[in-house]
């Protein structure tokens, strides 16, 4: 017969499915435990998706800030390069959102590293600037790091649930 969860072939004496661990011929309490385990995995996956989504929102926010700054510099004509640079940076952050959709871990890492580079490069102008808006920066770092960790959970648990054919 077939496992009622993952459709793999079961032998007559099998109590549990050797592929997904579903207690096909065990009592209800075992089946309850199985459902609970699957639910835990789905919860982790959902949580990971949420954190990755907040990284994407963060990237839109940072891109927006850079875009506004670029337009401001260009309108003031302070320096042409500052304006162009901010606009390019905004474009890169938007590109990173697309990247996060395709390759979660690499996309978030790339955006994080790029953001750190922009933060560090202010020391070339004035080292004290690195502490400006420090609370906001700490919040951003926390969102990025949670995103990096959940990219792993997302990859691992979506693969596990796919392997045992649970959507």
């Amino acid at each position, binding site marked *: 017969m077939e496992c009622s969860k993952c459709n793999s072939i*079961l032998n007559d004496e099998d109590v549990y499915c050797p592929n997904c661990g579903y207690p096909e011929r065990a009592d209800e309490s075992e089946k309850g435990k199985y459902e609970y385990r699957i639910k835990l995995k789905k919860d982790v996956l959902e949580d990971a998706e949420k954190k990755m989504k907040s990284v994407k929102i963060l990237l839109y926010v940072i891109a927006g800030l850079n875009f506004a700054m670029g337009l401001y510099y260009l309108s003031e004509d302070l320096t042409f*390069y500052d304006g162009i640079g901010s606009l390019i940076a905004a474009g890169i952050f938007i590109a990173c959102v697309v990247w996060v959709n395709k*390759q979660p871990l*690499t996309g978030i*890492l790339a955006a994080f590293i790029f953001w750190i580079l922009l933060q560090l490069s202010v020391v*070339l102008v004035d080292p004290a600037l690195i502490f400006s808006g420090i609370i906001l920066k700490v919040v951003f770092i926390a969102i990025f790091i949670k995103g990096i960790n959940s990219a792993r959970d997302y990859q691992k648990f979506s693969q596990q649930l796919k392997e045992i054919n649970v959507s």
Partner: protein
Amino acid sequence: MSVEIPVTVACPNCNSIQQVGYRFCSSCGQRNPIAVQKAERQDQKYQRNLKFLSIFAILCLVFVISSSFGEETLEQEIYWSIAFAVIVLVFIILQPETLRVIIPNRSFLKPLLVIFFIGISSGFIVSYLMDKLNLLLFEETYIYLHVYKESKHPLLMALIFIGVFPAVFEELAFRGFVFNNLQELAGNNSAIWGSAFLFGLVHLSLLSLIWIIPFGLLLSYFRNKYSTLFYGVIGHFTHNSTVVMIEYFNVYNY
């Protein structure tokens, strides 16, 4: 004499007979401890790769920012080149498997000619276009070579510190160390795009990203296709040396 490969194992929990490679014991429902161990080892390896990659990336950023503080003299150029080489070597000692991909193992001549040609032509195209773009935006051109004029052999020194050093150590760093770690973490495509992006960032110029990232993608593509750093080093060296030669012999008459 033939060795029999066992096809069944006993479940350590209930001693029932199971197929090799089972996930769950079919009679007691326990997970296969070998599979659990394997998953744990993969987790550890993942964390290790992520740690190495993050530390290296942050170190690269700190390095490029501090190197742009110094005055532009020949001593400074040499000092920062050697400092970057030392950083790369330390990470290679920590992860010696980076060196496994230096030598190509097959089809030698054709990709070599291709990358050689690409390196020279991209050198010409990039020095021409960046020259025009810099003139347009900043009304001045960027001269790589002026710090080398103080040395006795400007062309030789420029070829060593603009041609050879970056070709060898940037390739070891980005197509070697970064590429390998990203490949383990997230697969080939991630490694190609991620290493090219970081390679672009460490050049610390938003404007240059428009050609450095495509160039990095090309080198990563060769690294991935032929599983070797060799063509990357050749391509990087020909590109940089072409730029140096164009400037030295004043091809475009600045």
